[in-house]
């Protein structure tokens, strides 16, 4: 990459501006070390990309989802109260509200996860592995905005200790850490992560009507906004006609017509709908996915396999048409719920996915197939991708085993 070499030339002088150099160095090691390659003529190392750089690239690919998630938390909050219902109206308020909700989740996620990482590294006497960087960025994006922080902390402790450290640390886990944390919340504290209400953040629901709940942080922002003479948080209650139902809940009840009665197709594409924090904005997810494919971090085989699997299952359901949900046109399944987010960032986790190329196709296809089955056929769960990916994580080792076996058999026959 030529860009990399250009940035290298920007290196500030260490003596003249030490602070700038430290910042440069931190990001430089994040992005470009180790940069050892074999000299020209050697055919070995093109790019010594290590774990830290790989992780940071995924985190960068997630940033657009973070930005939109921040905005959408606020957007849903104000839409529920019937204020600033336009996309851009009250933009600063929406961002501020989103930040107040998302920042604590982000901090707790990293503090608990990295804290455990440091603890285990010290205990086992090796260098800190950066394994939690990606999980720490993914976990906030797949949680509902109002999740109690202690539940978040407990779920991360569960996922990191039992899902990763018990298996020997970074790169050895069998199940996706972020999804283990979410599935723990899902089964242990179901009321905090399912239903129509949890996706709309910042209301005191004990009171009738749901009164907007503002704390000191909102007060700080109010002072700031007052100084600039722009709108401030005024508070309010959830309007009576408002329903926070996600497209999935609507589809379960009444099929595609019920969804379009409340959300337009373009609204679901751009992501101004209730849902987990990072899953709603499809274009940004696709940009992140393309970036991961372009940098060869995520496997396009898994993504494409998953798209095929979901599309084929959707087409079968369309033809079957036994319930309202089955009649939802198959191409619309991609914009409701978290299919794309799971495809781009969850299924492609190189540690828990299959590692053979044929295996990746099978793995992706089966995730698409089973995920859509759970989404459409299982009345108990609103969405299927989390459970489908965990299910296929279970079988990833088996798929690899048989792909390898078949390969050996073929080559033995040729010999």
């Amino acid at each position, binding site marked *: 990459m030529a860009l990399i070499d250009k940035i290298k030339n920007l290196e500030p002088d260490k003596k003249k501006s030490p602070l700038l150099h430290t910042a440069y160095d931190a990001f430089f090691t994040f992005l470009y070390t180790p940069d050892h390659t074999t000299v020209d003529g050697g055919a070995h190392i093109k790019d010594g990309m290590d774990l830290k750089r790989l992780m940071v690239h995924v985190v960068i690919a997630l940033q657009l989802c973070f930005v939109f998630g921040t905005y959408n938390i606020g957007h849903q909050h104000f839409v529920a109260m019937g204020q600033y219902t336009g996309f851009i109206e009250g933009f600063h308020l929406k961002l501020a509200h989103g930040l107040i909700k998302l920042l604590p989740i982000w901090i707790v996620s990293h503090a608990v996860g990295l804290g455990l990482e440091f603890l285990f590294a010290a205990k086992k006497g090796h260098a800190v592995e950066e394994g939690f960087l990606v999980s720490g960025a993914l976990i906030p994006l797949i949680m509902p905005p109002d999740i109690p922080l202690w539940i978040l902390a407990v779920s991360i402790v569960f996922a990191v200790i039992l899902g990763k450290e*018990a298996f020997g640390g970074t790169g050895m886990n069998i199940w996706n850490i972020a999804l283990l944390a979410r599935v723990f919340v899902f089964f242990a504290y179901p009321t905090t992560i399912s239903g129509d209400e949890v996706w709309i953040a910042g209301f005191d629901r004990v009171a009738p009507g749901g009164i907007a709940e503002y704390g000191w942080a909102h007060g700080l922002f109010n002072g700031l906004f007052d100084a600039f003479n722009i709108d401030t948080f005024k508070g309010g209650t959830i309007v009576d006609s408002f329903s926070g139902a996600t497209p999935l809940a609507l589809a379960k009840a009444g099929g595609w017509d019920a969804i379009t009665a409340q959300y337009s197709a373009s609204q679901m594409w751009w992501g101004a709908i209730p849902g987990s924090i990072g899953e709603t904005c499809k274009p940004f997810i696709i940009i992140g996915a393309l970036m991961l494919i372009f940098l060869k971090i995520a496997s396009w085989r898994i993504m494409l396999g998953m798209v095929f699997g979901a599309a084929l299952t959707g087409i079968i359901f369309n033809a079957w048409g036994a319930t309202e949900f089955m009649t939802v046109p198959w191409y619309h399944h991609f914009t409701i719920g978290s299919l794309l987010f799971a495809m781009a960032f969850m299924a492609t986790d190189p540690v828990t996915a299959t590692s053979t190329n044929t295996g990746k196709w099978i793995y992706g296809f089966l995730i698409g197939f089973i995920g859509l*089955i759970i989404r459409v056929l299982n009345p108990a769960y609103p969405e299927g991708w*989390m459970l489908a990916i965990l299910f296929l994580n279970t*079988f990833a*080792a088996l798929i690899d085993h048989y792909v390898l076996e078949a390969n050996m058999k073929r080559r033995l026959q040729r010999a």
Partner: protein
Amino acid sequence: MELVNIFIKSAFIENLALAYFLGMCSYLAVSKTVKTAFGLGLAVIFVLGITMPINWMINTWLLSEGGIFGVDLTFLKLILFIAVIASMVQLVEMVVEKFSPSLYNALGIFLPLITVNCAILGGSLFMVSKEYNFAESVAFGLGGGFGWFLAIIAIAAIREKIRYSAVPAPMRGLGMAFLLTGLMGMAFMGLMGIDPSAF
């Protein structure tokens, strides 16, 4: 269609190993390599698939009140079921010993122990309590066996994969197997609650 539903339900949704946690002793002990797990899994499919219909016949025609004796003999259910299972396992053992001595040695004591594998007896008892007819009991037996087979080869593949992981010393061996089984059960919970006959 009903038979397919029962097969799918018993294989995936109500998996004997991962939803009911039956047959755990051989499940944990013989899941070190995929090859032996595969053999044991096949044996379990065979034994479940054969004993289920035989037990169905015994239960309906001999033991129940409408049977040939005309009296309710269902209290003999357990002992007769186990007798049938034991004889079938004997048959499997002879076949395996004849055709694959290496598998026979690898399975060791766990092959005859299928007799007391609670997945098999449990399957027969479920079959009675769910009041299946003959064809349904065959589907249930094969489906339950297939589900158990899938579970044991999946855990065996995972255990092969993590053989060289830096698993902390206290977690090695059986502790890891227990943890894996629990997490696999959690992964299987995604399918729980689907009712194939509802569509």
